[in-house]
């Protein structure tokens, strides 16, 4: 039956996370943005608050009612956390994007070793995981990845360079894709786990970005970086012709795209609510005020588009929770939400006029933060390729 009332568990999680975001994340936003980093003490506090298990990714499986609402939980939580602050959100310790690839392709031993043993423990030190796919010459065109892995007995030797890796410099483990068989294209790419401190794993510069400045974006190189066979996700079986290839592993991200879309929605909603409340308090919103109608018009469009984004996100999450293939719908949410949110951020700046671009308010920061959501985790254009192929089939 059509029902838009969230599960009671979801509703209480939303309220709890919102309170956390409002009290813990939002107050850190400006200073974190200016310094480009969050103090270690603050990260430790965040870690204590949520535990290292916390991840913006849905859990693989859990017991009880969360079994079939995990994706909904992830999108609702992501929206609220990003509403608090998206950059601080990315500083909350956890396996991050390393989790879905390990869950999708890893052996039971690898899941225990690289996820449970590292992240599912009580520790004072914040621990991060990371995923590195992008290279200087290959972003959306993943088939052009140049990093190679060459077998040497029971070991692999990796060479190549990766960029734009969130939390890459401080991660305990980084999952990278590398070509083991160039002739097989993307199917010839396999995922490897690189542990912090492995010889040949060299961190390069930390990027300075338009927004999300407090989120660590690192580049690194692999120079004759040796890992043992048990670091190849899926083990030796992954090398068989039907072994877990790149495409299969990336399917795991059908569940993460709605969460990233939900983060974008949270940023857009923050800007919309801020501009709405600012206008009510600061502008003479009476009939005689000449700009009143245009401001109402703008606010209404912002709210409508954000509402549409939430519908698309919740649809994709609901399908995932009910084991309905949702590749198209996940991409729809990821294609639409960042644009709706960007419109909201630009609109908020325009409504607030000279106070909109001022650093006294956070809307200028949200505008800088939001832009990347239409780029990372698959650009809006790649999402549209996925959507149109699922409708039209492969035509080229």
């Amino acid at each position: 039956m059509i029902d838009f009332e969230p599960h009671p568990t979801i509703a209480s999680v939303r309220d709890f996370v919102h309170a956390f975001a409002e009290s813990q994340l939002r107050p850190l936003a400006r200073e974190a943005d200016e310094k480009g980093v969050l103090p270690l003490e603050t990260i430790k506090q965040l870690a204590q608050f949520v535990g290292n298990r916390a991840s913006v990714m849905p859990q693989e499986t859990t017991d009880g009612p969360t079994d079939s609402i995990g994706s909904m939980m992830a999108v609702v939580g992501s929206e609220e956390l990003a509403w608090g602050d998206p950059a601080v959100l990315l500083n909350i310790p956890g396996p991050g994007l390393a989790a879905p690839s390990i869950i999708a392709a890893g052996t039971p031993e690898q899941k225990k070793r690289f996820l449970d043993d590292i992240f599912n423990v009580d520790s004072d030190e914040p621990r991060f995981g990371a995923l590195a796919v992008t290279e200087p010459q290959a972003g959306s065109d993943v088939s052009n990845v140049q990093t190679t892995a060459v077998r040497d007995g029971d070991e692999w030797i990796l060479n190549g360079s990766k960029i734009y890796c969130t939390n890459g410099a401080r991660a305990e483990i980084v999952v990278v894709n590398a070509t083991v068989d160039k002739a097989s294209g993307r199917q010839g790419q396999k995922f490897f786990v690189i542990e912090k401190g492995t010889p040949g794993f060299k961190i390069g510069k930390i990027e300075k970005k338009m927004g999300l400045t407090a989120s660590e974006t690192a580049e690194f190189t692999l120079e004759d970086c040796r890992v043992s066979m048990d670091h190849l996700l899926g083990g030796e079986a992954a090398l068989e012709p039907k072994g877990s290839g790149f495409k299969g592993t990336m399917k795991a991200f059908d569940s993460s795209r709605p969460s990233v879309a939900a983060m974008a929605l949270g940023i857009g909603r923050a800007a919309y609510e801020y501009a709405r409340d600012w206008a009510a308090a600061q502008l003479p919103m009476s009939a005689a005020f000449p700009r009143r109608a245009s401001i109402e018009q703008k606010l209404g469009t912002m709210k409508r588009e954000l509402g549409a984004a939430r519908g698309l996100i919740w649809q994709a999450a609901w399908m995932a929770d009910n084991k309905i293939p949702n590749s198209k719908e996940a991409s729809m949410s990821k294609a639409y939400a960042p644009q709706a949110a960007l419109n909201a951020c630009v609109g908020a700046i325009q409504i607030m006029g000279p106070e909109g671009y001022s650093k006294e308010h956070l809307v200028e920061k949200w505008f800088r933060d939001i832009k990347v959501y239409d780029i990372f985790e698959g650009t809006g254009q790649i999402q549209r390729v996925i959507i149109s192929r699922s409708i039209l089939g492969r035509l080229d």
Partner: protein
Amino acid sequence: MSRHFGAIFRDPLVPGEEPRRYTPTKLDRAVKYRQPESWMPFDLQPTDEQKALRNTLHDFAAEVLRAAARSCEEAGRTSPEIVRQAHEIGVTAPLAEEFGGGGVFDAVTHCMVAEELAWGDPGIAYHLVGSGAAAMVLGLAGSASQKQAYLAGFADAEPAASYVAIGEKVAAADLEALETAVDGDKVSGTKYGVLDAPAAFVGVVVGRSDDGIAAVVVDGSTDVDIVKREDKLGLEAAPTSVVRFDVAADAIPSGRELTQAILRTKLLTGAVALGCARAALEYASRYATEREAFGKPIGAFQAISFKIADMAIAVDAARLSVWRAAWKLDRGEATLADVAEANGTALAAAIRCGDDGVQVLGGHGYIRDHPVEKWFRDAVTLSVFDAPDVVGDMTVARSVTA
């Protein structure tokens, strides 16, 4: 029309030709994967009854409405035969069994009915759904005597015409700016887009009283001034008039029921727009896989395939928005802003899909051999009643800034 299209595209709008069959959407197919015993709260799974009803209406839309769309458009009204068939299916006027109907259905189902009929043809759908809206309003909000007097009329063997008059020249569809005055048992004001007024046996006129939104029942025998028959850009199968009311009428008790019923009438416009958008998306998608240019199907070019992707996003966003507003209506909680938000999303989708639908077909889209040019005209005509950029979004915002 080129030979290429003569072979591939049998125009579903030419009478006598076999209509195109329904291609289920991804969601329709996908839900067959797993049917748990009970769905968790937040659920997008229609009930079995809703699915069966959608299938029935889809066949009706594909086989009957598509084939008759052009002839009804030229005639300026839906053919009596189609009105009768829809009446027999029993979905145009939700009517309780005690008044001889097949049962009152909820707003979500009502929107599904409107979407499916509008997928066949938005003009015919607007006529069929609109002619039963008065039964819904009276059933939900009418006094006992009003129900007694009129509802049985909707259950007659012969389908009956009726209207719910909302739109005005100055206010357009802005319920908060209506100028029609309801004063006790008198109503005065000029309404635009009044459906089939000369034939109606009963009508509902929405206006404002000192207490806010108000509505009256106008008996078909009342001598109202039909100023002119509207000659429209689109939706021509739905005959509408400009009507001047300055008559004695029977006030409908005001209150939550009345507001919700009027909001539901407005939401049906959004549901028709949704069906219109989906029709254009599906037609353009199929065309993009079959038409070739530069040695490839045009859908292989991203200038085309990205349009298809954006149309698909707009259609899903519209459906979710409309369903959400309908679900709130069924809980008695919907606000004007909820409905304005849903209609804004649906009408934006209809206009985008109409425009891009024509564009994907290129010159063929502009020709009446294909239906997309009609759907584009229908979408723009529908948008008069709740244009997001002119009325809807301001209504959304007013609820939070006022």
